[in-house]
């Protein structure tokens, strides 16, 4: 704009005192505003750059090298290009085989556990929200498992289901080997994960149901909409945002499935049914092969792409669509016809 250009030439031209003062003070003000803003943001941004952005970029780079944490060398001798990724994409290497087995296993858990972790808490929240006697107690208790470390509750389950001294088998009169039989162990892990993981979602649904507009329910009742139908077509749409968020966080959380399986799969005799992809990665990181970090980084990047794809798909699928104009158009046509 020409006015800005003019400002540059102030020194040559004549100005009024007020214009001069305004120009100067505006600059000062803008400067101090941004200075304050940057000061407020700086601690966080510094941490973000140091502990998020920098690792993110260096992670991508590391995945192209044969990288050793204790002795990081980036040169031609350690350069691997996309070999790490290539190896991951062929199942003829143990890395690739473990990775894809891990992905398969993880997805299996996601598919089974996520619906449980959405529907069970939703049902419980709905029931608590009916306000039966003692609903405050139920609310407190149902959230309880979520606050304890999974290593603690996992240890309890591990002992409860022990074939030799756990009380579960004797209670049901069975002699199921919950800890080493692959199938039963998987079932146990699912039971535990659902047991320990429902609280968070339950609380969110409970809060969402509490915030629901009760007049809508009343209006629906007058419209003759009852029971389950009312829950589906009136209540659910109101808590859709929370449903979406829970679906989102739960499935991403399940993609990082590890702790539960680490605890309860301890006695598992078939490692291929417990090595989820995070487990594989974690085994490699905490293992003693120090040349493997580049490969692990490649695995992590690949898994990251996987998870990002899942979250983006969910975003697209659950996005709120605009109303469209179907009925308005029909109305206009009807108007024309009459």
């Amino acid at each position, binding site marked *: 704009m020409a006015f800005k250009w003019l400002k540059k030439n102030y020194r040559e031209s004549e100005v009024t005192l007020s214009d001069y003062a305004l120009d100067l003070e505006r600059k000062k003000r803008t400067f101090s505003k941004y200075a304050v803003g940057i000061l407020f943001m700086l601690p966080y941004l510094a941490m973000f750059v140091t502990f998020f952005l920098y690792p993110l970029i260096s992670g991508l780079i590391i995945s192209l090298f*044969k990288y050793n*944490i*204790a*002795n990081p060398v980036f040169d031609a001798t350690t350069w691997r290009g996309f070999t790490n990724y290539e*190896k991951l994409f062929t199942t003829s*290497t*143990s*890395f690739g*085989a473990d990775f894809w087995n891990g992905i398969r296993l993880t997805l299996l858990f996601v598919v089974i556990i996520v619906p449980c972790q959405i529907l069970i808490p939703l049902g419980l929240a709905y029931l608590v929200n009916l306000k039966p006697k003692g609903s405050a107690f139920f609310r407190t208790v149902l959230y309880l498992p979520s606050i304890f470390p999974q290593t603690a509750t996992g240890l309890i389950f591990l002992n409860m289901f*022990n*074939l*030799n001294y756990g009380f579960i088998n004797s209670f049901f009169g069975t002699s199921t*080997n919950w*800890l*080493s*039989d*692959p199938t039963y162990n998987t079932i146990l892990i699912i039971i535990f994960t659902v047991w320990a993981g429902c609280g968070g979602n339950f609380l969110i649904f409970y809060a969402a149901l509490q915030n629901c507009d009760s007049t809508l329910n009343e209006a629906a009742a007058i419209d003759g909409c009852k029971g389950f139908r009312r829950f589906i077509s009136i209540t659910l749409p109101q808590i859709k945002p929370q449903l979406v968020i829970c679906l989102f966080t739960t499935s991403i959380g399940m993609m990082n499935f590890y702790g539960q399986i680490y605890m309860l799969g301890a*006695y598992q*005799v*078939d*490692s291929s049914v417990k090595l989820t992809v995070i487990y594989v990665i974690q085994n490699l990181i*905490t*293992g*003693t*092969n*120090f*040349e*493997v970090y580049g*490969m692990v980084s490649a695995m992590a990047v690949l898994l990251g792409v996987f998870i990002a794809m899942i979250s983006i798909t969910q975003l697209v699928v659950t996005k709120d669509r605009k109303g469209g104009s179907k009925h308005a158009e029909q109305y206009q046509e009807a108007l024309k016809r009459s």
Partner: protein
Amino acid sequence: MKKATHLLTMVLAVTLLAACETAPQSSSGGDGGIDDKYLGEWKDDSVDDLQFDNDGNPILNNVELKMWSTVTNPDAEYQDQIIADFNKAYEGQIKLSYTGGGVCYHESRFSIYGNFAKTVNQDPENAPDVFYGYGERIGAITNQDLIVPVGPYLKMANIGFQKDYFETKLIDNCFVGDNLYGLPISVDTAHTLARKDILEKNGLTVPTNYLELTDVCDKLVEKANAGELWVRGNDTAYVAKGDPTEWRKYSVAIEGPYYPFPISNGDMWIYDYYAETAALQNGGVLCDKSGMPSFASPEVAGGLQILRDWIFPTETSSNKYAMSAPDLNYDAGAKDFYAGTCSFYLDGAWGLYVDTAKLDTMYIGEGGSKDNLAIINPSKLLCKDYSKDYSKEIFGDSHAISLVKNTTSRAKRVAGAIFSNYLAEHSGGLWTKAGHLPASTVVQQSTDDYLDNPYYQKYVQYFGTTDLYQTMPVSVYYDYVMNGYHTALKQATSSIYTSRNIIDLLSDAQEDAVQRINDIKGL
């Protein structure tokens, strides 16, 4: 520096004794040196901070050493006592301690190797100066570049070294090429205990090999099923008598099926001793000379078949009845043995002190453990064919001590060598309490330290001689070989996999292990 040359004098004694038969070729050290052929090609990379006195002995002034040890309780206690004795003997010269307090850091065998490798590589400041581990794993940790040869430092310490001072197989494990990477201390295995009193009361004798064992077990089960089996011992979940000396008849109806010899499908005794011994006694080899796994062989499968038959008898197995309940997790039979509801029990060498003590108190008036407990030599215990030499072999874990590469101070390395030597010399005595057989042939023959030792007399004498003991051949892929074999073992003895052939399980595990080794090589 008198103590430092102790080993030398003993070596002299031994060589003099043996001199009649074999002319000593090694120019063992009047000059206090070490045979050069054991020095290998090693360039001393330590920082020269060591001075010598006029006699050519190193001057050590309060050298602090840090040791990590793979032995855990109860042996850790004994080891700490031995080290404390060392500290006292070398006061002012060498001192072992670590920051956590105490004289030595102990960690279980399951995690210490990972921790050791990580620490040396990624946290060198906290790495130990000496590492007390397993002889058969020296090859692997040398390959990982974690330790340095001990030979040159023994020489600097004026300690003579004679290869035949040690049991050949054990000292061979410590060599990588010509370089001596550690000193062997001892070897141990898991042992089979039998309730002599119960067997005798029921008219049976203590078995000495597998076929006898299965025969005795079958008879015990038959008697139990007929309600004729005499048992006695501590209270059980079903029967509480209060008096362990009182005999009663085992009741299958109340107490459930009788299992004479419970074993788990994966605790340490099975994992680390029985399974390997079974392979050995059937002529199997777990890994080949290059260190690659070779356990997918009919011989090894035969060994595992014996363990599977133990729990899941078939028509072809020598036992008719299951000797153990399936899918036991840990400490199988630990209490049943004292309750008399089983007759055999498998325990680590270091458990014998406690085991004998228990029976001593239970049957104090009846000769204690001496008359009521039998310790069965593991030879021939896990094979059907006793004609071969290997049927006598016993699998053992050998302890060995090495110098860690991060310690660059020469004084520390020399101190470490002196300490290693001390442990090798003191592998009798208290160490015997933990059931370890000394690696040193000299110690094995010493009356003071070993043969007159109460623990030797009480249990170690039944453990077999060290020449029967085999360790894993040195493999740089130790972890992969063992992981693969253990996976197959665990599956072979689990009720879930009874439908699968053992050789198939072994092949799968071996294939996987080979694949992983190749992947790591090609990384």
